[in-house]
């Protein structure tokens, strides 16, 4: 009854995995063409460099699956970075210990960061404001508040241990000498420090813990299932008894939570808080989600796809730098990949064709 054409089936399978194949191809290409591209240090650099896009894109994945979009995350990064930096600086000046000041700074940014998400969700779900407009409004508001909080100047002079946290690694290894966890042993000679191999940046670990948790939620839980249902047919979801309004508010809060997390990562990485931090990554994040197989019409997308999409951009960026090609070419390349991704999505035939039905 079903007449599977084996060859075309394999072709479709390959086409469906094209992002992963493209990513591997990119890495192979730059490893051959570049210098020292395929090294532990450089690959870790790519991961750290991609943190903002990875985090923003993971939150954005949820929103895009519901058929919405969250533009506010662009300036939510800056907002969260100045909030956490400001709290850290002020609390340390007020005599708090560094670990306490840093913890409070992080918590403040995470808590305040949920408010814009709640407002976005409320506007979209209850007041039926189009997501593009609601979150674009919040984009400006978040930027304005960020500039007010930092009085128009970047916040410096953060507690010194911010750097050791943000630039630290999970493991340190000096061949034939030691293997240590989280901290570098003291009393190393300059020569030994040069040979020291750092493995897995802290920031990458934190980033992937959160991405992993939310990938699980989207793929395995009722919450994830309802997210897809809302994107597929909002009326069907409502008729089936899903509390659509509350669900949408939660989804926008997830997105702003990830943007806040990206802001905190920015502070840990650059040891400063800036209002425009991360704003350049808004489009990259949306592009990463779409390359990862999501549809802007909703109902489709996965976190794993989004991670692949984010890394395609990250690998390309570092690769172009490595080859000494001016980075504005990156925008051309990313633009081309985006259009290709949408074309593949539109023209790839469905794997399972309509089949005979008998009742």
């Amino acid at each position, binding site marked *: 009854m079903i007449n599977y054409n084996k060859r075309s089936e394999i072709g479709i399978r390959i086409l469906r995995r094209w992002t992963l194949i493209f990513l591997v191809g990119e890495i192979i290409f730059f490893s051959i063409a570049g210098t020292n591209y395929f090294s532990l240090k450089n690959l870790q650099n790519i991961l750290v460099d991609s943190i903002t896009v990875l985090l923003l894109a993971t939150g954005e994945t949820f929103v895009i699956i519901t058929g919405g979009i969250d533009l506010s995350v662009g300036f939510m990064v800056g907002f969260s970075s100045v909030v956490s930096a400001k709290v850290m600086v002020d609390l340390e000046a007020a005599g708090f210990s560094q670990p306490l000041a840093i913890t409070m700074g992080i918590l403040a940014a995470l808590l305040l960061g949920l408010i814009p998400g709640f407002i976005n969700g409320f506007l979209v779900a209850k007041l039926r404001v189009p997501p593009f407009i609601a979150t674009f409004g919040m984009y400006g508001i978040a930027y304005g508040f960020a500039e007010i909080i930092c009085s128009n100047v970047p916040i410096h002079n953060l507690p010194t241990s911010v750097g050791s946290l943000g630039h630290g690694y999970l493991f340190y290894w000096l061949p034939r000498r030691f293997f240590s966890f989280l901290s570098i042993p003291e009393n190393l000679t300059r020569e030994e420090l040069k040979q020291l191999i750092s493995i897995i940046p802290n920031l990458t670990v934190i980033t992937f813990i959160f991405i992993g948790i939310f990938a699980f939620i989207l793929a395995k839980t*009722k919450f994830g299932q309802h997210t897809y*249902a809302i994107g597929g*047919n909002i009326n069907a979801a409502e008729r089936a008894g899903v509390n659509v309004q509350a669900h949408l508010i939660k989804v926008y809060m997830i997105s702003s939570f990830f943007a806040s997390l990206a802001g905190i990562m920015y502070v840990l990485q650059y040891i400063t808080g800036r209002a425009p931090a991360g704003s350049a990554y808004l489009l990259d994040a949306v592009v990463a989600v779409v390359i990862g197989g999501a549809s802007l019409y909703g109902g*489709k997308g996965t976190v794993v796809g989004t991670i692949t999409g984010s890394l395609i951009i990250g690998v390309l960026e570092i690769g172009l730098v490595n080859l000494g090609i001016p980075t504005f070419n990156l925008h051309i390349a990313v633009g081309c990949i985006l259009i290709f991704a949408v074309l593949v999505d539109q023209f790839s035939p469905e794997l399972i064709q309509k089949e005979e039905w008998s009742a």
Partner: protein
Amino acid sequence: MMETLLEVKNIIKRFGGLTAVDNVNMQIFPGEVVGILGDNGAGKSTLIKVISGVYHAEEGQIFFEGQKIKISNPMEALKIGIETIYQDLALAENMNVYSNIFLGREKLKKYLGLINVLDHDYMLNESKKMLNRLEINIPSLENKIRNLSGGQRQAVAISRSIYWNARLLIMDEPTAALGVAERGKVLNLVKTLSSQGVSVIIISHQIHDVFSVATRLLIMRRGKKVAERLTKKTNTDEVVGLIVGSLPGDYN
């Protein structure tokens, strides 16, 4: 005498100066298939929208299993067991068959004894049983609704409502968008439902389709019920005459 599943008495529904449903009475027994026939604007759709909670009647009463009920919105109708199978079918096209059947009432299991995750195996098996019971054959329940034909989609929507204990299905033009083969399958499904005790109200312009499944016919004209016939004691000529008004009705 058998107890009625649904009884509506003296229903009147007005839209401004227009009386869309004018003093209509109707009874439906368990497992019965009733066809409502009438020209455009005869009031068929308005009548079933009153029953399914979309409209509120100005006058009249509704009884379900002998109990007087008030249906103020479609969700209440669903809870009582009255389900309308809509044209757009209210399915999420991006999701597979069993996920749609369980949408909003997902079966969960513990993952590592801690976290609630979706129990795909259970939902798949239960859905299979349901489709078998209704003699519906869909090759894979992991197919997305998008990849199914119109008739298959209708079968999924019906399975979903029966699984969740619908007692009365209202089908508005169920065969309109279907090809000949699929139309036959949907009509067979209606017969299966009836044999399993589910009552069905069917509205259609396809008089032959209604004749092939309904045991009783209700003919409406200009908001009024003009006649009621047992299918086996009438013929299409008489029914068409009643619909267009060339034959006088019983009640005017």
